[in-house]
C-alpha cells in the first residue's frame, strides 16, 4: 500500500464538474499535462526534484516525462534541498526556468536561506537587472502517519516575504492553469498542492491556458457570509456551505487561488454584501494567512463588517501522527458548518 494512498482515495469526492462541459481529468494528470506542455514550449524550462524520474513520478505528476524529454530536462537530484534551491536560483538568474518539485513543504524548511535570503531578493537587490523565474512546488501531506514533519502547510511562514508569489490551487483546472502561469512568471513562485486533492476529477481544457496569479474566484454565491480560503480546506467549506442550503443559509465562497499577491478586492466586494467573514486555511490558524485576510478586512472593509470575524485553521500544535489524534487535529466540513451557523444566528 503506497503510503497514504488508501486514505486519499477514501477522501476523494465524485467529479466536481459536469463531464458534458468538457474533458475531465484528475488533478495529477492536469499537472502532468501542464509540465508536458511547458517542457515542449520552451527549451529553457527544466524539471528537477528527488524522484521526479522514478516510476511513481512524484505522485504521478511527472509520470512519463523522462521518456518524452532529455535527461537534462527532467532529472533526479541529490538530497541537498538548500543547495539545489540555490542551484535553481542561479540557473534562473541566467536564462533558465527551473521547476523544482518536492514531496513535502516540510523539506522546504531546509531551503529558507536560498528562498528567503536569496531567491526572493535578487531581482530587487540587483535593481531589476536580474530576474529569478522559478517554480517551487510541494504537496502538503496529510494522513497515514504523516505526522509533525511530513504534513506542514507552511504558507504562513512565507507570506510575509517580499518578492515571492504563493499559489494554492483547489481544482484540476486551476492546478494546470496556475502551474502554466507560474512557469511563465518571471519571479520565484511557490505552489503548494495538497495530497488530498490529487485524486479529484475536474474539467480541464487541452492545450495551454493560464489562470491569472493574484485573482480570486467565487465558487459559490450567497448572502449571509463570506468564506475565504484556498486549497483542500476550500473543498471542505464547499461541502459545509452546500449542506446549509436547507437551513436557508447561503454564502459567498471565495477561492483566492493565490495567497500572494492576494486579491483583496474580491473579498471586500463580497463583504459589502454579507458583512460576515470566515477565513479558512489548511495551515496553522495563528498568524499568517488567516490573520492577514482578517486584518485586511478589519483595515479596509471595516464598515462592511456586521459581526466578529472568524477563522478556522490548525490549532497551535504540531501534527500528530496517529489516526485518531489526526481526526481531532484537523477541521472538517462539520466544524466549518457549525461555525457558519453560529455566525449567521
Amino acid at each position: 500500500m503506497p503510503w497514504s494512498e488508501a486514505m486519499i482515495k477514501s477522501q476523494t469526492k465524485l467529479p466536481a464538474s459536469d463531464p458534458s462541459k468538457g474533458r475531465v481529468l484528475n488533478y495529477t494528470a492536469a499537472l502532468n499535462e501542464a509540465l508536458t506542455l511547458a517542457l515542449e514550449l520552451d527549451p529553457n524550462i527544466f524539471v528537477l526534484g528527488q524522484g521526479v524520474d522514478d516510476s511513481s513520478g512524484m505522485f504521478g505528476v511527472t509520470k512519463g516525462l523522462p521518456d518524452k524529454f532529455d535527461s537534462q530536462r527532467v532529472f533526479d537530484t541529490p538530497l541537498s534541498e538548500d543547495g539545489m534551491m540555490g542551484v535553481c536560483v542561479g540557473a534562473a538568474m541566467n536564462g533558465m526556468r527551473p521547476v523544482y518539485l518536492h514531496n513535502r513543504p516540510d523539506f522546504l524548511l531546509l531551503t529558507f536561506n536560498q528562498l528567503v535570503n536569496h531567491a526572493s531578493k535578487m531581482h530587487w537587490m540587483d535593481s531589476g537587472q536580474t530576474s529569478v523565474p522559478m517554480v517551487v512546488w510541494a504537496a502538503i501531506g496529510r494522513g497515514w502517519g504523516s505526522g509533525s514533519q511530513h504534513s506542514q502547510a507552511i504558507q504562513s511562514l512565507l507570506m510575509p516575504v517580499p518578492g515571492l508569489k504563493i499559489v494554492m490551487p483547489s481544482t484540476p483546472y486551476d492546478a494546470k492553469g496556475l502551474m502554466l502561469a507560474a512557469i511563465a512568471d518571471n519571479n520565484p513562485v511557490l505552489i503548494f498542492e495538497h495530497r488530498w486533492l490529487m485524486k479529484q476529477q475536474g474539467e480541464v481544457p487541452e492545450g495551454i491556458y493560464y489562470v491569472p496569479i493574484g485573482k480570486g474566484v467565487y465558487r459559490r454565491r450567497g448572502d449571509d457570509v463570506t468564506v475565504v480560503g484556498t486549497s483542500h480546506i476550500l473543498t471542505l467549506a464547499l461541502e459545509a456551505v452546500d449542506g446549509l442550503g436547507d437551513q436557508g443559509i447561503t454564502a459567498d465562497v471565495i477561492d483566492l487561488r493565490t495567497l500572494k499577491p492576494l486579491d483583496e478586492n474580491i473579498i471586500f466586494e463580497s463583504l459589502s454584501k454579507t458583512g460576515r467573514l470566515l477565513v479558512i486555511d489548511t495551515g496553522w490558524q495563528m498568524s499568517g494567512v488567516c490573520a492577514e485576510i482578517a486584518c485586511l478586512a478589519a483595515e479596509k472593509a471595516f464598515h462592511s463588517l456586521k459581526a466578529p470575524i472568524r477563522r478556522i485553521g490548525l490549532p497551535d500544535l504540531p501534527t500528530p501522527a496517529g489516526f485518531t489524534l489526526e481526526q481531532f487535529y484537523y477541521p472538517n466540513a462539520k466544524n466549518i458548518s457549525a461555525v457558519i451557523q453560529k455566525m449567521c444566528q
Partner: protein
Amino acid sequence: MIRFHYQGQGYYNIDLSTYEQAFLHNLYYAMLRIRRIEEEIERRYCEDEMKTPIHLVIGQEATSVGSCAALKTDDRIYATHRTHGNYLAKGGDLKAMISELYCRANGCVASRGGSMHLLDKKAGMDGSSAIVGGIIPIATGSALAAQLQSSDCITGVFFGDGATEEGALWESLNFAALKKLPVIYFCENNFYSVCSPLKNREPAGTRIDKKADAFGVNAEQVDATNVIKVYEATLRAILRINSGAGPAFLECIAYRWRGHSGAGDDSHTGYRDPKEVLHWETVCPVATFYNALIDQGLLHENQARRMEEMINAEIKEAFAYAINSPNPVYEDLNKFAYSD
C-alpha cells in the same frame, strides 16, 4: 543489470571461536527477532490497521545489532525514518513499538510519532527525525552534552547514504572533530534513496568514508552483512573515543531487500533489477551467520528452533497487546503544547 554488486562477505569462513557462545547467540537472536518482527509487520500491513508509513530494515539487521551490541544501555542512539532495527537492537520495548504503529494511546510516543519516530529513553533509544539528515546535528549535540557533563555516555547516530548529501552532516562532522565529541556516525549505505540509486546522486569515484576522513573524523567502510565486523568496528570506535581521539564514522554497507517504504519488494517498478535483490539475499546477514554458527558447532538446531518460538510468542503477544490497546482521546491532543 546488477548495479550494486555483491560486496558483502556474509559469514562464510569466519572463525568465531574467540567469542563467548552466549554473546553469539544474543547477536543471532537479536537479528532474527528484528527479521521476524518486520516480517509480521509486513504481513499485517495490508490490513490497513497500522496507519503509518513503514520503512523495513530487512537485509540490514546487522548494522543495528552489531553496533548496539558494543554500546551500553546508557549510551544514546538516534535514528532516521528507518527506525525499527535501531529501536529493537538498542532494547526498545516491543509492545510500545507495535502500539505506536497501531496509533494507540500507549504507543511509545502516545501515537504522536508513528513508525518514523520511535523512541524508548530507558533503553537509550533517544529519538529520531523523519527529516533526512535532521537528526545528525541533534545527535552531535547529545555528544556535546555528554562531554560538557563529563559523562562517559557515547552517542550513536544512524542514517542512510542519502543523508550524506545533506550539508548538515558535514557541518556536524566538522564540529564533532573540532571538539573531539564522543559520537559515532553510522552511515547505513544501502545504495538507494527511495528509488534513486547512489550514482544519480553522488559522483562516481567518490567514497563516503573518504569524505568523512577528510573532515577529520576517523572513518572506515564496514561490511554490514557481517554482524561481527560491525561489532568490531564499533568497538574500535569506542576505544578511540575513550582515548580522547574523538568521533568515528562507519560506512556500513548492506542492502535493503524490500521497497523503500511499505511492504514487499518493489523491484518490479524498474528502478533496480530484481536480480540485484536475489544477489544480496545470498549474503543475508541472518542466514549466513546462522550457517556459520551451525557449521562451527556454536549453535544447535533445536536452540535455534527455540529462539524462533520465543520470538514468535513475543510477537503474538505484542500484536495482541497493541490491537487491544485504547486509542487516544480528544484531551490527549492538547497535552505538552509547551514544556512546563
